[in-house]
């Protein structure tokens, strides 16, 4: 190792020390390659979702006249007859414009991901906090129930729940939320146990703070990092699971422009109109990929174990 790299290392070490943990995390996140890619893709998806009415040439459920069902994409720039109307992604089996449906689908997918995970976080946090704080029997019962829920393969449990509630988008979302509750309950409970006995919590209790107040101002800030990471990755799997349920006919009902449903409706035309199967799948994949990459980046950035000096040296 040369002297110059040694000085560089020393400088970077001092600079690590002089920054707040949040600044450090932010720096690591911004420099993280996969976080950058995820951020760009997600930003793109969010923009599409926000400006869907502007971007989509047609309504997603409008049945078009003068077009053939499952017509191939028609792009004027690529030599499609100018007299025909332009449909970049082609026409689906019910003579609707595929591009518009895919664009509106981005709204639904983002909503699905965020809604299911938010619900799971709220319920999971509550259960985990109550369990960790109360301890004893309450804790035991809550956590054993969570263990049992984790003992099922998650998608199959959601399928079973949908079987009970009946097919439909809302029921599918409830089922997906429900099966992801245990993860958040466990995270929050672990953080509660970690800080429950610490002096600053005792002090706060001595000052007369209510359990809820302690939970909000002392416990949750300690749990927020793993929750954020888990939520980002959770959104990815929620979108995948919702698409799977819709694909099976247990989720969104036609004519909702849901990507999984679009795939399911057109799966039998795979050999004669492959674009109808190809495009929604790519859309799902890109959205899920964005959340996965972002989640990886967040985990690497927020995990304090990353600032492990000896590890840094070993690499060099």
């Amino acid at each position: 190792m040369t002297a110059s790299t040694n000085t560089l290392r020393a400088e970077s070490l001092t600079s690590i020390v002089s920054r707040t943990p949040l600044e450090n995390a932010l720096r690591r996140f911004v420099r993280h390659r996969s976080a950058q890619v995820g951020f760009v893709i997600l930003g793109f998806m969010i923009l599409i979702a926000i400006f869907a009415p502007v971007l989509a040439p047609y309504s997603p459920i409008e049945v078009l006249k003068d077009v053939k069902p499952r017509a191939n994409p028609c792009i004027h720039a690529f030599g499609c007859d100018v007299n025909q109307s332009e449909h970049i992604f082609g026409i689906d089996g019910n003579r609707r414009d595929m591009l518009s449906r895919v664009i509106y689908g981005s709204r639904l997918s983002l909503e699905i991901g965020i809604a299911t995970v938010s619900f799971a976080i709220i319920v999971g946090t509550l259960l985990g906090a109550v369990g960790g704080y109360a301890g004893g029997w309450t804790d035991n019962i809550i956590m054993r129930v969570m263990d049992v829920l984790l003992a099922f393969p998650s998608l199959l449990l959601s399928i079973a729940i949908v079987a009970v509630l009946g097919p439909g988008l809302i029921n599918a979302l409830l089922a997906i939320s429900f099966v992801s509750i245990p993860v958040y309950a466990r995270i929050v409970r672990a953080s509660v146990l970690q800080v429950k006995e610490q002096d600053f919590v005792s002090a706060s209790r001595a000052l007369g703070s209510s359990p809820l107040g302690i939970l909000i101002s002392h416990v949750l800030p300690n749990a927020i990092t793993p929750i954020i990471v888990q939520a980002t990755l959770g959104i990815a799997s929620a979108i995948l699971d919702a698409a799977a349920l819709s694909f099976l006919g247990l989720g969104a009902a036609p004519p909702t422009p849901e990507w999984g449903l679009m795939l399911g409706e057109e799966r039998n035309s795979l050999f004669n109109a492959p674009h109808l199967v190809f495009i929604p799948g790519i859309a799902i994949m890109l959205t899920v990929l964005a959340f996965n990459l972002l989640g990886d980046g967040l985990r690497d950035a927020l995990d304090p174990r990353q600032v492990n000096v000896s590890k840094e040296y070993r690499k060099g």
Partner: protein
Amino acid sequence: MSQFLIRRFLLLLPVLFGITFVTFALARILPGDPCFAVLGEKVSPEQCAAFRERQGLNDPIMVQFVRYLGDLTHGDLGVSLKDQRPVTDIVLQRLPMTIEITIGAMFFSTFFGVLLGIISAVRRNSAIDVGTMIGANVGVSMPVFWLGLMLAYVFALKLKGTPFWIPPSGRLSSGISIPPLTEFYHMEKLSGLWGAVVTFASNMVTFNALITGNFDVFRDALWHLILPCIAVGTIPLSIIARMTRSSMLEVLSLDYIRTARAKGLIERVVVLKHALRNALLPIVTVVGLSVGGLMSGAVLTETVFALPGVGTQLISAILSRDYAVVQAFTVVIALIFVFVNLIVDFSYAFLDPRVRLQ
């Protein structure tokens, strides 16, 4: 060691109880009267009362639950409301296909996942490492059913007429079939547990073909399994590759590896013998945890490849509100998942002596 195994096994009991309770409760909190669901809307109150009495629905809920547990231990999963067959028969007929896909996908994902992970770790930052990691990120983000459709498109349509053509659907090519094991061995029709085991093994086409020496059928069955297994195995493959890579990187940076290299061992021995054994523990965990995903994936993929497994039956049962079937498949798959995790825990004790001593 045995103490560890016994303790782990005892810890399983509450979970098993919970699983059966949840599946039982799911079927009981259904909206609507099961009587209408089974006998139709036009049924008379007397018929309904008789039905409730016959099905034991008038008993207290705990009595019903205990009876359900008792039936379960006898392998009695109830009767399908739709076609009046014992659900156990349906499970024995459908489950082998799903298990075949799960096992095939597990071999595929573990073999290639560990292989790619090791290569990526050893050749860190090389083209193959970067390629694998990008591939792994994309791999975990793909919907299983979509990947299945894409594979069918490429291998069944685009490669038609080439030696790489693979059939897009079905379990065996038309004209090929395999007799049940009882017929092959000229056995009496068995009942009870042995009957169930033999039926299960018969319906597992690859296994049946292998032990009866029917290699043409075996090859044909494997050929039909390739695409579903790749589709189902891709997500676990990506996860296993990433896990293997990071676990190997950590181990390879330890001092004993440097010692092994310093004493002149060839790299292959260092990597495969010294490093891999210590890197295995997290890999085994991931493989075990992926079983749940594999089974869900198999259920999804069966509908794409028109395979007669749990998935296709489960979906039609849900749509026709045949809860006995849904309940049975849920409980059976959850039990399999739990036992696989138990095996994973046991393999820890085998791989890592520290676990035994805890």
